[in-house]
């Protein structure tokens, strides 16, 4: 198996365990480069993952810009709360981010905890 393929498999395993640990709160998740290219994703086929990945990179870029202009240190989490759920972005390192789509009423505290662990694992895989 190629390095890229085994890396994708390892990332998919992280996304799967994230979904498993959050017991149905996760509607989808993805690992994306900070310039918007998808590395791994678990989303329904109804979602255009290439587009969503670029959007996630844009959102993180803007979040980091806000943090920088207000001199508030690093961005740790960006939450978009919608009528029917959440889209949350966690920076993993300087190269990539973790994006998580949660159902309405999903447990944000648990997501934060689990996503932190997932981000650490992703960082290990991507370095």
């Amino acid at each position: 198996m190629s390095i890229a393929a085994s890396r994708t498999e390892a990332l998919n395993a992280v996304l799967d365990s994230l979904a498993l640990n959050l017991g149905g709160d996760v509607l989808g998740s993805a690992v994306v480069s900070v310039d918007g290219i998808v590395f791994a994703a678990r989303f329904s086929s109804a979602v255009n993952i290439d587009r969503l990945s670029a959007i996630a990179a844009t959102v993180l870029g803007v979040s980091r810009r806000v943090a920088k202009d207000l001199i508030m240190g690093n961005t740790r989490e960006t939450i978009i709360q919608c009528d029917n759920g959440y889209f949350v972005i966690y920076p993993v390192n300087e190269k990539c981010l973790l994006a998580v789509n949660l159902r309405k009423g999903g447990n944000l505290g648990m997501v934060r905890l689990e996503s932190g662990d997932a981000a650490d694992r992703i960082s290990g895989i991507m370095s």
Partner: protein
Amino acid sequence: MAEEPLLNILKIVITGAYAAGKTQFIKTISEIEVVDTEVEASNDEERLFKSHTTVALDFGIITVNEQLALYLFGTPGQERFDFMWEILSLGCIGYVVMVDSCRPAHFKEALGVIRYFTNLTDVPFVVAANKQDDPTALPLDYIRRRLGLAEEIPVLSCVATDRESVKEVLLTLLDRIYELSGTP
């Protein structure tokens, strides 16, 4: 306290394909520190041309005179960010399409950007053929032909690192905006 003079603010978008020099263009002319959103490029093909890329927007301001300031909004170049092209085009009264004069292989992408923008908005635009100081730069009439541009669309020589050159492009765009709106 002195009364503030009436200041018109015009929104101009700086767009174009990947690595055409959009961020540089704004950095060269802006009076404020440019609000950029650059990150490291990860894709090998894209890294060939530069190490960093804009993921959301660039923002700069240039005051033309006491009555007029331009707010410059730079877009990301890659098509995957086309949702930002749409967002940034809202309320713009003219735009600059930047093209790298030395990379004919990318003219197709530039054409894609022009098509996208002309579908989004009817406001006037000019094409800035960047890197015209490079010995390998292709001539303006060739670029015009390759992009299939109508005669009335200005194709301007540009060096994005040169303040006078950037200014000239913006002034030409302004002329065209006034010309088409029928105001002096």
